[in-house]
């Protein structure tokens, strides 16, 4: 059920999407042709300090009007256009993907310490819950999600991802159960600079959803993966947890392991579990999360999903299968199987 792959070039050297397209297709057995998606960081260098909002429109009449009115209320649309797509014979173009390069008016949320991000989050939640026929599926700076209902190669060719160049790529091949084949249900899920690809099913979804919604996020994608993006945003952006501790909150060590740690680590880990118990994720999962300066991959604590990592020079690859990594980088030298629950992190070299 689902195949995932992610790569970061730590020197921020750009890669086009052709390679990851082939790698994802190697894992076609893991999908069902009902959803694939890609996200790339660094794809809009000319608009690097504007928010690139990707929106699925059912029609470009009423929904578009309402979205643009909302955007104009909260800031300025510097540029916008339909995202170029190329017809694929077996894929139905169910939505019109559009992109806006948007600058929020931060004076409108002056009470916040991160007004731009809060404005954009508010816009995303509002559009996705109350504007019919419009869905924001990418809302970060200098990054873009490209996804649809179709096989990896079809979706890649639909957007021509080989025309985009990024230093971080994530990709996902979906085998859906909860919602068959609607474009919004494909991965990656994105909010601001957080993008998530996920293989598995979160049995704690009900708990996580209640937790995250009490902080103002709204789950509108009918898919459990959504909570991962929001929880990362809450823990890292809002609560300032170091990245590896945010992962620790989502996939904590067992109590019997914590009991056997030295006092400092015991208190630290216990505090994390007590405070963030409702954010903890249960069920099988292999997840890769990307943000503008890192990718992090981790699996559930009892390793119910496969996860493989590989490094080559300054690139880190994380995937469900080694074969997918080798397809992207035949010269890959160092392949490992990360331990259950422990994050593999690749950061941009500063």
């Amino acid at each position, binding site marked *: 059920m689902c195949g995932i792959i992610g790569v970061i070039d730590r020197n921020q050297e750009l890669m086009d999407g052709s390679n990851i397209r082939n790698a994802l297709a190697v894992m076609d*057995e893991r999908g069902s042709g009902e959803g694939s998606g890609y996200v790339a960081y660094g794809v809009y260098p000319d608009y690097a300090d504007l928010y690139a909002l990707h929106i699925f429109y059912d029609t470009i009449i009423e929904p578009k009007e309402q979205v643009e009115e909302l955007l104009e209320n909260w800031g300025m649309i510097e540029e916008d256009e339909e995202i170029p797509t190329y017809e694929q014979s077996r894929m139905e173009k169910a939505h019109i993907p559009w992109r806006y390069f948007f600058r929020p008016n931060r004076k409108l949320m002056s009470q916040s310490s991160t007004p731009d991000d809060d404005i954009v989050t508010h816009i995303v939640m509002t559009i996705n819950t109350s504007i019919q026929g419009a869905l924001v599926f990418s809302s970060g700076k200098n990054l873009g999600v490209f996804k649809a209902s179709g096989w990896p190669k079809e979706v890649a060719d639909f957007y021509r991802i080989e025309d985009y160049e990024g230093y971080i790529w994530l990709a996902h091949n979906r085998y859906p159960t909860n919602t068959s084949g609607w474009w919004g249900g494909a991965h990656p899920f994105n909010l601001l600079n957080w993008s998530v690809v996920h293989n598995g099913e979160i049995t704690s979804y009900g708990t996580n959803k209640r937790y995250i919604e009490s902080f103002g996020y709204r789950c509108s994608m009918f898919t459990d993966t959504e909570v991962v993006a929001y929880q990362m945003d809450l823990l890292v952006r809002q609560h300032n947890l170091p990245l590896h501790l945010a992962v620790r909150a989502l996939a904590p060590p067992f109590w*019997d392991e914590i009991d*056997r740690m030295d006092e400092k680590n015991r208190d630290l880990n216990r505090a994390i579990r007590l405070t963030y118990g409702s954010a903890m994720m249960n069920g099988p999962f292999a997840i890769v999360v990307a943000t503008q300066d890192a990718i992090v991959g981790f699996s559930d604590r*009892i*390793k119910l999903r*496969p996860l493989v990592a590989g490094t080559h020079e300054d690139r880190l690859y994380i995937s469900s299968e*080694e074969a997918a990594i*080798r397809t992207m980088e035949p010269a890959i030298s160092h392949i490992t199987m990360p331990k*259950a629950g422990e994050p593999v992190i690749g950061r941009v070299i500063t």
Partner: protein
Amino acid sequence: MAVYTINAENLHYTPLNQMIRKAVRDGYDEIIIDNVMGQRFIADGLTGSVKLTIHGVPGGDLGMFMSGPTCIVHGNAEHAPGNTMDGGCIVVFGTCGDATAHSMRGGKIFVRDDIGYRGGIHMKEYQEKRPALIIGHQARAFLGEYMAGGLLILLRRGENDIYAERGIGSGIHGGMILIRGEVDDWCLGVGAKKTTAQREEMDIITPYVHEFCSWFDEDPDTYLSSSFSCIKPASARPFVNKYTWE
């Protein structure tokens, strides 16, 4: 020795397996498969005594239900190689993923380096059908979970500290796990009992260790000269005390 070579590049597993079966029917003793990149189900359900040499990374369920042939992998195997394997031999010059030898019921698997989680889960045996999984370096948690029979040997090449992965032999009710070196007590799973391997147990594993070393060109004494921990069932009914009739 008639040899048949297949180039598996960009080949889906169904036509690949068809080519393998045809070669077996045509009487070839050895089949070499090059450029394997993630194809699943290679040698599934294969019987006979053919020798398969695989170059590359075979995908999940390598040799599932296989009963007789020998599969040699020059590369890493992914998820569940030897799944429900009935007989024959798999040799991996590399690592294997999670659920290696799941439900294995016969035959031998030799892994040069590491395996993932739940290795040998639910291995079984009956009379002379006694499967064996021998691992050269490391294995992750839940090794030998639900073990009902068979032999699991973890050699831990180059490791001298105590083995500390949880859930060893969790639910074991038959069979035996031999781990070179010391094992932390908290790692034992439900119903597992640990002792130091005695002469009797060492005699059982010696031929397997020799065979492992002959595949990977190593010296058996580097392993056999060490002490091994032996994990066996504490009882045949580890959960009898959990249930009461209504």
